[in-house]
């Protein structure tokens, strides 16, 4: 290919993108939509259910305080610690539940795989930043709250290119 036609082709290829819709989106105002409510695990079948691995959610009525999630996290991130709660559940005699330090968590989700009682799942909430380290530690009460997440942007591929909309 001659030098001139090489340049012309490059410019032509680039300038086409002047009329194509932009690929990016405005993040804090617009957010990505996720499929499902987050990563879950079915201990009976021994297989996970696809979903985003964000902040955890803890079902207080199912947690037995068995510490398997904390044991799974040992050697990975050591983010889970068991703490005493002021709740009386029949299945949880010791009244202990996991507390997660998101300053350490790597969001691998192996704690969810370890839970045999359908008590610990993950959600779509990924906006966890805070000004202090202490605020990154989520107590069992905080983990019980279902996150409010309303993303609506999705990657769309049309004949004229890919865009977020």
């Amino acid at each position: 290919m001659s030098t001139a036609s090489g340049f012309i082709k490059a410019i032509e290829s680039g300038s086409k993108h002047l009329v194509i819709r932009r690929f990016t989106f405005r993040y804090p105002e617009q957010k990505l939509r996720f499929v499902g409510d987050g990563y879950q695990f079915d201990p009976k079948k021994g297989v996970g259910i696809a979903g985003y691995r964000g902040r955890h959610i803890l079902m207080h009525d199912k947690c037995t305080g068995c510490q398997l999630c904390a044991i799974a996290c040992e050697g990975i991130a050591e983010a889970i610690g068991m703490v005493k709660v002021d709740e009386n559940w029949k299945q949880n005699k010791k009244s202990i539940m996991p507390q997660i330090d998101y300053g350490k968590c790597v969001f691998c989700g192996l704690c969810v795989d370890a839970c045999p009682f359908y008590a610990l799942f993950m959600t779509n909430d990924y906006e966890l930043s805070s000004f202090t380290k202490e605020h990154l530690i989520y107590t069992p009460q905080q983990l019980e709250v279902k996150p409010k997440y309303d993303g609506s942007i999705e990657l769309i591929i049309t004949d004229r290119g890919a865009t977020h909309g």
Partner: protein
Amino acid sequence: MATLEEKIEETRRLGLQVVKETEEDRLMTLSIGPQHPGSGHFRFTVKVDGDYIVYCDPDPGYVHRGEEKMCEYRNVIQNIPHLERPVIHDSTNVTYSYSLAVEDLMGIQVPRRGQFIRAIASEMNRQVYTLYWLAIYGIFLGHSTMFMWPAGDRELFIDLLERLTGARVTHAYNIPGGVRNDMPEGFKQRCLDHINYFEKRLKEYEDIFYNMPLFRQRTEGVAVLSKEDAVKLGVTGSVLRASGVPYDIRKVEPYDVYNEIDFKVQYMKTGDSFARSYVPFLDMKESCHIMRQLLDKMPQSGEVRTKLQPNPKGPAGEAYRRVESGRGALGYHIVSDGTPKPYRVKISVGSFRNMLALPFLLVGNKLADMPAVYWSLNYWPVEADR
């Protein structure tokens, strides 16, 4: 043109500084890195005579994390999240190789659907890695459009992997025994849409980058690595294939379902910087072809994971398995003494082997060609240091 042996002798002579005083005054030593010469913390010192590099001394080790030692204190499942950290852009291929080795050791059989999903995730992750590599190669050579485009198109595959695995980069998806979850609904169609669009984009890459006369002039004929030297130095992956050796682990040592897939090993014969940058591009094209076949041949339903004991352990023994990662052969050698924790893990990475070619390729080239040579080696310092 000096032979490899002469070059080794020459670099040794200069490295030991047994040069005459007057000659030493002529040379200037420059330290490149260790902050960030483009891809991670890595330093190399070069001695320049005017504009030409006469000596190069790579100095890796700034990001050594002791991955191999860490493996000895964790069980086989707990090892997964930390093993994928050194090269997060290619994390599925890292865990793929590790899982294969553990399965060999423990005698675990992966369900057929799980094998296909693994291979699809691995191909997608290779695309993600190669696009990231291409983006940095573009910006290294001052082509900022080539930084924006691959960085944007990476999102196509990141989006797919996010739906499949639940995380954008560190997937922790392959696990000894299969994959952690099945495909979500409508995933296959979405994959095909993305692949079709991506193939159109690859044509545009060719127009704006690979056929651009400026890029070709900067890379063609620069730092030629001959076939014999490539084999002697033991380079791997795209660097080896660019020198005319059609060597791909997916072909020579087919793992899982790759022996059922029809594909060609992409290689070039020139061995210069251009060939080293073009071979990964050809690989991306071939990878689209492989992914289509995998999606087509995949069983529609079935198990994806073999259930393991909570703290899995196998008989004492050892296993070595490797896969073709974005940077070449990536192997795991695991020795077990029968306990849940591995006795010894040795990781053989492509980055480190490709880095060994750097001193011999840089010598004799201009300093301005350094970025074009360095990044064409597909080198990832964090992976090399482990």
